[in-house]
């Protein structure tokens, strides 16, 4: 049993600089692999819908006909699952969090600009049929 066990720690604390950061003057601590928010490169998305199917919180919606990819920031639990499953590697996990928002602003819609590269039609088709026969 002892009295003033805490005294040393308490006095030292007053002499040290604060343990917290002066946010926002000093930016928040992030590491290279911190999960902040998902972003998409619309030029590479092939609208396969894999991210939509695998997202555990159902935050992503891909509409193939309208060529849109949308994420509900307030539903997204920042798990990195979509980034891992995307076959076109067009999703990235940014380290910064998305800014605070109201419910109505949560859904972010991105127009997909991917264009299927033109295949040199004749030659490819011939080769394929050649292989098939």
């Amino acid at each position, binding site marked *: *049993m*002892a*009295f003033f*066990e*805490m005294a*040393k*720690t*308490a006095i030292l*604390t007053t002499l040290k600089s604060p*343990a917290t950061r002066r946010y926002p003057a000093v930016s928040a*601590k992030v*590491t290279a*692999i*911190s*999960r902040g928010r998902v972003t998409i490169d619309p030029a590479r998305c092939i609208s396969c819908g894999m991210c939509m199917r*695998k997202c*555990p919180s159902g935050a992503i919606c891909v509409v193939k006909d309208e060529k849109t990819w949308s994420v509900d920031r307030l539903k997204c*639990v*920042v*798990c*990195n*699952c979509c980034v*891992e499953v995307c076959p076109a590697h067009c999703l990235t*996990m940014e380290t910064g969090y998305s800014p605070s928002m109201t419910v109505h602003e949560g859904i972010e819609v991105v127009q997909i600009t991917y264009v299927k590269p033109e295949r040199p039609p004749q030659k490819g088709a011939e080769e394929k049929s050649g292989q098939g026969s």
Partner: protein
Amino acid sequence: MSRRIIVPFGPQHPVLPEPIHLDLVLQDERVVEAIPSIGYIHRGLETLVAKREYPEYVYIAERTCGICSFIHGMTYCQGVEQVMNLEVPERALFLRTIWSEYSRMHSHLLWLGLFADAIGFENLFMASWRLRESVLDVLEETTGGRVIQGSCKVGGVRRDIPGETLECMVRDLEGFERDFKEIANVFLRDESIIARTRGVGVLSHGDAYHLGAVGPTARGSGVAIDLRKTGYAAYGKIHFKPVVETDGDCYARCAVRVKEVFSSIDIVRQAAAKIPEGEIEVKPKGNPNGECFSRAEQPRGELVHYVKGDGSRHLVRSRIRTPTLTNVPPLVKMLAGCELADVPVIVLSIDPCIGCMER
């Protein structure tokens, strides 16, 4: 004899971080009986198992609890791996052990802070949480998430910890241990803490055993149950002794947790020294068909995940039994006969995690 009155305690109460309701039957200032009621934050996570494929359900299993999330994910993965007969690489098992122990340190420091706060020792509360921050920083650096790590998957782990980082972590543990010793002394020896916790909420060895107490609540009463001794993950290759105290009061439960932080530090050191090189995951083939009870030691005690698959991508049933649920009957026993003013301290002494209890 004076009249009996009922005082409602919770679900909103300054000392409770999460909602549980207790009807306290009082005679004067003394609690005669406590009647708990739960069910304020049921989320239905177990039902989601039918809607998400089994590899993605890890993310949901992890979100059962915001404090020991890694261990939830790991226990679920262990269950599925057992059903699928997956041989997890050694390195992954060691990484799981390291992350589990960091989760334990972070959880215990969180609890120590809350406990100090319940006693009214604000300064100690902040000192504990400042230390906890350094543990969270390590978790973020190695997994990408401070609280929800998301680094466990069926068949292994998602991320490796490179050798240099591991060395650096072990080096930093030295400073952490030194700092923690300072506040551990306060918890174990300070007059005001002892006055508030000694002899309060006593749970006898027999009661702890028969009422099914788990984790530090059981070990504080001298019941030496520690699931890590069953040797899941890499615990079989690590030497440690379960921390046991025999008094069964709030002080003993607090002492168990303080000492477990030291034992966690030791386990991380051993694991870092013994970790082999190699793969960190195996790809699961096919779908789980069968059932399994998977158990692990959470910071609060024994955690059980039951999984049942029928050979499809979706499991048919998941059941999660968390340690807080089994610690409620011992809590009711502890509360009977205590002073009203001691109720907050006793309730906190089982480290209730209601969010994970109700899933």
